[in-house]
């Protein structure tokens, strides 16, 4: 069965610093897609970044980037120059035909 694991329930980062959120997954599929979603206190789910498993190049969206290690089944999210507005729950998700979400990492940004 496919699973997604986020081993860090909570992380803290100083404003303007860099933080990395971990995500590992388990699958026997070779073609799939990975996402990071952000859920601020408003509870709305916002897509942060996506990665296709067949692409070796790591995805980047402004201050957000991923470190995708397919062999290790690892998909970490790096947030550079952290801002107060980055404080939220972050969910890693995997999909082939249905989506599987991790349990989330709560990120606190310290001023």
């Amino acid at each position, binding site marked *: 069965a496919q699973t997604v694991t*986020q081993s860090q329930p909570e992380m803290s980062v100083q404003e303007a610093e860099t933080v990395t959120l971990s995500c590992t997954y388990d699958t026997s599929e070779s073609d799939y*897609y990975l*996402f990071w*979603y952000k859920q601020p206190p408003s*509870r*709305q*789910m916002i*897509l942060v970044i*996506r990665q*296709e498993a067949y692409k070796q190049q790591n995805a980047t969206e402004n201050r957000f980037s991923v470190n995708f290690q397919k062999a290790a089944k690892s998909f970490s999210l790096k947030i550079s120059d952290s801002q107060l507005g980055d404080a939220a729950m972050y*969910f890693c*998700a995997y*999909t*082939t*035909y*249905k*989506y*599987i*979400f*991790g*349990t*989330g990492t709560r990120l606190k940004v310290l001023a």
Partner: protein
Amino acid sequence: SQTIHQWPATLVQPVGSPLSLECTVEGTSNPNLYWYRQAAGRGLQLLFYSVGIGQISSEVPQNLSASRPQDRQFILSSKKLLLSDSGFYLCAWSPELGTNQPQHFGDGTRLSIL
């Protein structure tokens, strides 16, 4: 552009009462639709998904059911609510299975069972 509407935003119900949460999508055809539950401080649990009218897949055996009477309408129901049904319910849609297209979420319904 596509939009997703979910209501009500907040609901307080007594144990044993029925439930109906509604979700509609605009601006797209034949979307894949999903219902999730998020317990306090926890991740998203997929409850149901649907790839077409009348086609419902259940992921977790429980007190809830889902229906899709129209292409862009997805309803979550219960005949008799339990205390354990409390949580935050999210509806989502995606354009196609097995692609890099992400899911798009509604604003959620906070359900409290008394």
